């Protein structure tokens, strides 16, 4: 699992994203490459987990800025049940949003995935919440009701690409953990 470097670089957008995320810290990747992937994630989650919108209630119409502080872009999630969207923006674009969640990419990922406790991250100052706090709490609670791992579900949705995607994610984790201990 730790041998992420063995995952071959690929022209597929998914591989490009997942393999290169840490490198993107330095590089400038056209966001156009990742937009379709993000769009796919949003539609998949919406289709697979309609109960999300019931839990979100009126907050489904809000715009959430997810800010992975170690990556060179931010995400705007708009869960709106009719037309869910997830888009990447450059930070300098300062996209409009109602609520913001900022933290290291993997902390955010683990929180969404149900393997890290959001409150604990907040207490330790690893998670920053801005704007509409109630919307953030609703989103957190709605995501936390996902059966099993939301991440696995999303990865599975990429069909034939699922396996390399999973490998890439675990590879990134290993890389991150090495960086943390360096």
């Amino acid at each position, binding site marked *: 699992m730790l041998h992420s470097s063995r995952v071959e670089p690929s022209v597929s957008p998914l591989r490009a994203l997942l393999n290169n995320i840490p490198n993107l810290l330095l590089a400038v990747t056209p966001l156009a490459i990742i937009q379709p992937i993000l769009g796919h994630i949003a539609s998949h989650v919406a289709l697979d987990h309609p109960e999300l919108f*019931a*839990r*979100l*209630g009126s*907050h489904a119409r809000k715009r959430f800025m997810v800010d992975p502080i170690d990556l060179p872009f931010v995400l705007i999630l708009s869960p709106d049940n009719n037309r869910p969207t997830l888009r990447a923006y450059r930070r300098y674009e300062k996209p409009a949003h109602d609520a913001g969640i900022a933290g290291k990419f993997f902390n955010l990922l*683990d*929180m969404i995935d*149900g*393997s*890290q*406790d*959001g*409150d*604990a991250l*907040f*207490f*330790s*100052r690893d998670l*920053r*919440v*801005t704007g509409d*706090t*109630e*919307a*953030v*709490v*609703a*989103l*957190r*609670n*709605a995501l*936390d*009701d*996902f*059966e099993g791992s939301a991440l696995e579900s999303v990865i599975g949705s990429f069909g034939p690409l699922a396996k390399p995607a999973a490998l890439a994610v675990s590879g990134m984790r290993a890389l991150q953990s090495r960086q943390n201990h360096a």
Partner: protein
Amino acid sequence: MPDPDFLRPELVCPAGTPAALRTAVDAGADAVYCGFQNATNARNFPGLNFTPAELEQAIGYAHAREAKVLLAVNTFPPAGRFDLWRDAIDVAARLGVDAVIVGDIGVADYAARTYPDLRLHLSVQAGASSPEAIRFYCQAFAVKRVVLPRILTVTEIAELHREIPCEIEAFIFGNIGMMAEGRCSLTNYATGLSTNMDGVCSPAADVRYEEDEDSTLTTKLGPFMIDRFACGENAGYPTICKGRYLCSSKPGGYYAFEEPVSLNLSALLPDLMRAGVTALKIEGRQRSRAYVKAVVSAFRKAVDDIMASHEPALANLLALTEGHKETQGAYRSKTWR
């Protein structure tokens, strides 16, 4: 061989969502408590809690694994809105929950008269902290178990146990409010939403986090600054009873009520069990599955170890606690008061 001093206690675990309920059951909960998505329970938070259909499924899941489901209907219906609470009791009885946790005298009276076979637990929200208070509820509503306020020492719990005709459930881990439960209007004072009537404490809608250039985090509830954390300092929720304030008798800001800490009684488990506590309760319906899994697993193991007369290996749960600080609260000694 089990320790002859005590019976195997029931581990009562929080579930804010159906997924959290399954997580708790899978991690070894003997009972799970939850609430409906409205003001009838004291964790009426956005995105949290159960629909009646979800509760029905959850009961099926838990019962198939020999775990109980307790439903918290533990807030106080203001006159004119009693129907919501009555419906909650009706649904609970229809779906066959193992017990309903009630706090209000009116709700208890309705449940006891309408469903004499429905098991009633007295919520911590009722604030019954003396044998006389508990006996009153036992006599009036045939309450079978009392959830004790977090203000008694273990010695006092042992004495209480001998003076009451019902079971005792005691908190062992989680958020520790400083005010007597069911008797706190601080949130309503600052936000216009009531802990007793609306089931909220520091509602997220009124919470603001502001971080300045120096990474100093200011937390606010409504217009009131509740605390300020320097860069790197562990933070807490803007809960009024855990805020820092100024007062004429102190030179600077101080925690007038309590610091952001969490209760952790893992070290006192054997004492609590010996004191006659039937059920050990973990707080945190508003917390994530990750929290539920970590805390329930740790306490499952600790209780099993104690029952097998092993020294319990107590996992470090500090990372999950508010302010990353733990306390034994009132349970150890009266000097806490």
